[in-house]
């Protein structure tokens, strides 16, 4: 077992036993992934952060009963996905016009909107994978840990997703076709 995995296992054991600081460390570790998952559903950075934080609150309530500790991260991801879906149901989905990614501030807004539309064409689970990969550059190892799927599967699904997005963007004239 790798050192990182061992530390993670110890943190989860301690958190399940009631150590709130260990839970805090786990929450900090998975916060970016959870925000990305929230973003893939809500398309709003601020709401995505709200979803991640609410997911931690729900996870805390369920933690003493968590049986399969090896799947802590996928379990957390599922809670976050549910929280985000609940938020969509509760509020009319609104993409705030001011909610433009920091890095996109000086870029062409049409490009950004086209990519978002292309993203919308993907199935929810695939969209989530793309967002996890590009939101803050999560590695395959990190994505594998959060989604509980193999790196080979991540690679295959990402390749197919990008191919679909490329077709959509080419059709709208935002991307030249490859040779």
């Amino acid at each position, binding site marked *: 077992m790798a050192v990182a995995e061992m530390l993670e296992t110890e943190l989860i054991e301690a958190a399940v036993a009631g150590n709130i600081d260990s839970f805090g460390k786990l929450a900090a570790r998975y916060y*970016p992934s959870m925000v990305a998952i929230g973003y893939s559903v809500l398309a709003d950075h601020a709401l995505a952060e709200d979803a991640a934080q609410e997911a931690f609150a729900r996870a805390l309530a369920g933690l*003493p009963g968590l049986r399969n500790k090896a799947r802590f991260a996928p379990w957390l991801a599922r809670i976050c996905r549910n929280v985000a879906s609940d938020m969509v149901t509760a509020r009319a989905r609104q993409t705030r016009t001011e909610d433009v990614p*920091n890095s996109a501030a000086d870029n062409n807004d049409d490009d*950004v909107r086209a*990519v978002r539309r292309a*993203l919308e064409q993907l199935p929810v689970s695939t969209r989530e994978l793309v967002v996890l990969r590009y939101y803050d550059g999560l590695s395959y190892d990190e994505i594998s840990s959060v989604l509980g799927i193999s790196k080979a599967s991540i690679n295959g699904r990402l390749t197919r997703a*990008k191919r679909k*997005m490329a077709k959509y963007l080419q059709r709208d004239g935002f991307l030249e076709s*490859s040779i």
Partner: protein
Amino acid sequence: MKPSEHDKKLDELIGRAISRQRPKFDFDKWQKDHQKQIKDFKAETEPLPESVRPPNIGTIIMKSKITKFAAAAVIVIAVLAGLPFFSGNGSGVVLAAVLERVEQVRAFMYKTNVRMTASMGENMPVMDLDMEMTTIISNDFGLKTETITVDGNTGEKSTCTVYVIPHEGIAVTLIPDKKKYMQMEFDDDLLAKMKQQNNDPREMIKRMMGSEYTELGRSVVDGVEVDGFQTTDPNVMGGMGENVTLTLWVDAESWLPVRSEMESRKGDQMQVHCVVSEFNWDIPVTADDFKPVIPDDFEPMATGMQMPKISEEGLIEGLKFFAELSGSYPKKLSMMDLAQEIAALANSQGLRDRVKRLKEEMTEAGELDKDEFMMKWMQITQPLQSAGLFYMTLVQGKKDPAYYGESVGPDDAHEVLLRWKVSDDQYRVIYGDLTAEDLSAEQLAQLENPPSQ
């Protein structure tokens, strides 16, 4: 544009659209915003002194007299009547003749003595029960079973009578000690199966015929000359025990069963010894013998209870229910393993929340009664019984079931969670996301053993 440039451009576009500086988690602020949740969490996980520790739900269930009645009712109905639907496909010529002889009998009576000890898990009391059941079966009118249960831990004795009335689709349980009665309904599917096959030793013979069995030769039992048959095939009990021995003694002259004994053990966790004897064949019965007479001072309890659904639908409901409470699927689906997992689950936050909600609802409706509460609680967990019973029928029916609950969870949407054979070349497959489809044996093999990359 070259493919590599094209990919780079696409990466840039996606990155520009959604990338963001890695968000930082402010745990201190989060703690301030979620003080109640943290307080509840600490209260939940902090070990309490024995004197103030809240009662373990599992313990309450095990100690509840009423639950034992209900459990007895379910055991009697499900195991004797509903479960062994699958007739064996063995070629036991002699046993086939015994079965044919038994099926000519319109009504008969027998006694069943069951001694069962079972440990449901750590910190749970060991169940120690002695049950004596007297059963009358009529092809025309139904089934009646009187059960006397003695709790080996307390010496407490309790009685109940179960009536199964197939043409009305109901089972009625009378509990004289409590002056209560309970009515359970069967769904149409289960009712149809019950009408086709009315329980009893006939099913035991069929199960033995479908197993590898040996002939024990001639002997004398209860003063009668008999021929013996024995099987140790674990499937005969639907995978309930790992070491099963079922022995059947048949009258050498009439070819009717005289006595059967079943010994089943699952490690140190469960031991069951069951003797069926004192058969009376072709007894005179009337419809009135199978009509429950409910005294005026008996009160109904837990009305509207239904039998577990022994179907794919019931299985999926059970798996979904378990996943909602624990975040994963049961590791195993055999009844004994499942019983232990349910007992462990009894202290989960999810189930505690449900119990709390149920108590609140019943208090508001002015009907919070301990017995009623326990029955409703049992009804809540009923989907899990459905899952276990359905799996048991797959094992007993030799449907080649394989269950992967130890490695497949709700997030493994496309991985095989359970599969079983539906025809020579077709399998039914339930995936991690609980969707289902039929696959050929070849397609299934590819899924279960993907080629290495």
